[in-house]
């Protein structure tokens, strides 16, 4: 329970200076950019404190690890989705993509394939889905909203076809350790989540590709005239989103040890909510993975706490919806002011 709070906090510090941040924290700038995740970070701490006070059994190691495990799939989806949204795109298909990847993994297990094959097929399906979304969006300059909305629909159809509309329960699931085991007391799914975030954080903040993503979202024309292959980079962000859908799909499949036809449906909205809560702008160019992780944790903690308090799931949804609205609204108002200050 101690290693989860300092973790994101220190990472916030490392990431607050935005794409070019390095060296010592500068005085004038950090007020503009660090606020992006600072707000939701504070909100998360406040929420955790509140839940620790009022929700029974919330503040126990077992429960906190459980929150992390529950949130891992959404958090991983949101990590890939952050790349897409940073280029001012959107990927609505991740929930259905997760369904397809989980289905592929379970069906492979059902056919008696070994764990490695099931995992590779599942991740491969995710990459392929992302590639199709990305190439169509970038090459034909179609609105990502429409392309991925269509993907949401047809991919769901694939899940129905693959599961034949019923629950598929293989005799054994060779990769079930992904969803079931723990290492050093922490569930494997949580380790995977942390690894995905670490890897993608590096990709976004330390590589040429990451800078190109941010530049495209910040000013696509400037990026193009700077010789950046805008289409290629944009398409790749959807591949990343597809890959994370594959990873999340594996985790979900390993946890459930079965595939149901509506697996993952609605996940895309939770993932987008986590991204936006984390301070990433839907207009592109601004945001961070640390923020997204905090946003996902926020959603996880809220829903876990409400369950512990025996709030009925229907009411949970109502509360969740309004809390997200409130968080985004507060963020918008704060940002509106800070941007007005930024201008000359």
């Amino acid at each position: 329970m101690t290693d989860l709070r300092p973790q994101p906090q220190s990472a916030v510090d490392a990431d607050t200076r935005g794409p070019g941040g390095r060296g010592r924290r500068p005085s004038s700038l950090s007020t503009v950019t660090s606020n992006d995740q600072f707000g939701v970070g504070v909100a998360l701490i406040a929420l955790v404190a509140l839940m620790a006070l009022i929700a029974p059994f919330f503040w126990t190691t077992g429960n906190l690890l459980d929150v992390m495990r529950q949130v891992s799939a959404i958090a991983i989806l949101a990590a890939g989705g952050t790349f897409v949204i940073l280029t001012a795109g959107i990927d609505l298909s991740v929930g259905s993509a997760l369904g397809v990847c989980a289905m592929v993994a379970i069906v492979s297990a059902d056919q008696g394939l070994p764990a490695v094959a099931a995992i590779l097929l599942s991740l491969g399906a995710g990459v392929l889905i992302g590639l199709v979304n990305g190439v169509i969006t970038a090459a034909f300059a179609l609105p990502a909203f429409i392309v991925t909305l269509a993907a949401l629909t047809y991919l769901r159809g694939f899940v129905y076809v693959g599961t034949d509309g019923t629950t598929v329960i293989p005799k054994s699931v060779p990769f079930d350790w992904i969803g079931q085991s723990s290492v050093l007391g922490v569930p494997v799914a949580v380790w995977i989540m942390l690894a995905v975030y670490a890897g993608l954080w590096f990709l976004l903040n330390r590589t040429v590709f990451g800078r190109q993503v941010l530049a495209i979202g910040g000013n696509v024309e400037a990026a193009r005239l700077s010789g950046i292959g805008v289409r290629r980079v944009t398409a790749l962000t959807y591949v990343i989103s597809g890959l994370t859908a594959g990873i999340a799909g594996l985790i979900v499949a390993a946890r459930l040890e079965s595939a149901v036809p509506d697996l993952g449906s609605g996940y895309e909205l939770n993932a987008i909510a986590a991204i936006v809560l984390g301070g990433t702008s839907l207009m592109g160019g601004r945001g961070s993975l640390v923020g997204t992780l905090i946003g996902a944790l926020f959603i996880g903690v809220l829903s876990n706490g409400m369950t512990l308090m025996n709030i009925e799931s229907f009411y949970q949804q109502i509360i969740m919806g309004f809390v997200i609205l409130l968080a985004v609204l507060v963020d918008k108002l704060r940002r509106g002011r800070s941007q007005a200050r930024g201008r000359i």
Partner: protein
Amino acid sequence: MAAQSDAPVVSMTGIIKSFAGVRVLDEVGLELRAGEVHALAGENGAGKSTLMKILAGIHAPEAGTVLIGGQPAVHDVRSARQAGVAIVHQELMLAGNLTVADNLAMGRERRSRLGALDRRRTTEAAQRMLDEVGASFGPHTRVDSLSTGQQQLVEIARALAENPKVLILDEPTAALSAPEVTNLFQLVRELRRTGTAIAYITHRMEEITELADVVTVLRDGRQVETVEVARTTPEHIISRMIGRPIGSLFAHERQTPGEVVLRVRGLADQQIGPVDLDVRGGEVVGIGGLVGSGRSELARLIFGADRRTAGTVEVAGRPVPPSSPQAAMRAGLALLPEDRKALGLVLDHSIDSNIVLASLDRVSSTGVTSRRRVRSACTEESERLRIKMGSAAQPVRQLSGGNQQKVLLAKWLRTEPQVLILDEPTRGVDIGAKADIYRMINECSARGMAVLVISSELPELLGISDRVVVMREGALVAELTGTNLSEEAVMRPAFGLDADEVSGGAQPEAPHEEGVQR
């Protein structure tokens, strides 16, 4: 038909206005009279539009008085409109998805008793307004199906709806075809006959001589001259527009040009060309011409920012593939675009990430950027260009225009180009930053780079260039070197006063058949 009534409808005196510390109008006066067309002439940035926006209540002056019909004006748009001032902006402000009638009724929609839109009365009113300007289309036409000229007519109809005493037209012909210009002129003459005072902003000489009764020339925010058109000549007006000494700002040591580095042959698209152009290593070639003559478009075409329909571009003998800035960059081209905010910089990102944006490969190995190398690139450039900043992590948005421009220049210099194309490199830049930019241009040419500079500021263009080519209507119409380099020599072909053709293939259309559809 010239000035007849004595009391002016509008009387502006001692108008002073600054933007961001830069004085754009310095004690300017203007009188508009009923039944008179008053042209405002001057180079870009001379203050014409600002002066008119003050009259229309869009800006408030810092000092000076504005009297409309003898009454002191209140500086807001509504009051100006009530006082009888209507303005037709250079950029059309219509909603293309609505009908002409809806656009004309915008902001003063008529409602029926039930609160719904009264479509019948809206249509009738629109038809009356269209009749008044002699429009050939009906009120139910969707605006985006109209030509630019027809849309302009809608704007004018809207401006005339309140029977203004003063009508301001801001470069109304900039986007019109020849027949549309004829129609507009007829309309303006008709308005003059019925006693409207008309202020007409233009920098096209033929419009001044054909249409205006009086012309006021502005230069650098100062009123240089107000004279009756009948008593002056186009040459005189031009000389008044440009006449100022070239400062010692441009300490340009001419290089002995080397081999041809940039070779452009037959380059064309729908609006431009065909253009032939050579720039040698160490040579600075300026492109002169009016705004809209196709200079920026030519630059974008060379760089591959837009798709060319014909022609070739070569850098040091290697062909540059069309429509790929990426490939152009690899071939050694760099383009500093005209609008740094929209096309050049990522404003919300930090200074250092903007500086390395076009040369990410140089600060990284196997795709991983080295923060140390980014930092040293940024330090190097900020020292070389004297970029004033708080820290390298500061968002570019917070910098002054001059420093933003230096960041953009730094970004391109990091790519170590062989050909540097600069489009209005000193627009909106203070004098100190200008000097730094000129110094960098000199350094670049001294290092053997081929430099192509577009500038609307003639002294700058002449000061930094070894050679100037002049564009008009998408074609190169003149080439000037050495002793031939003078402001007048650039302006005359730019205005189409004498079009001695140069560089084979550059065929300007016949002057009267103006097909500048933009």
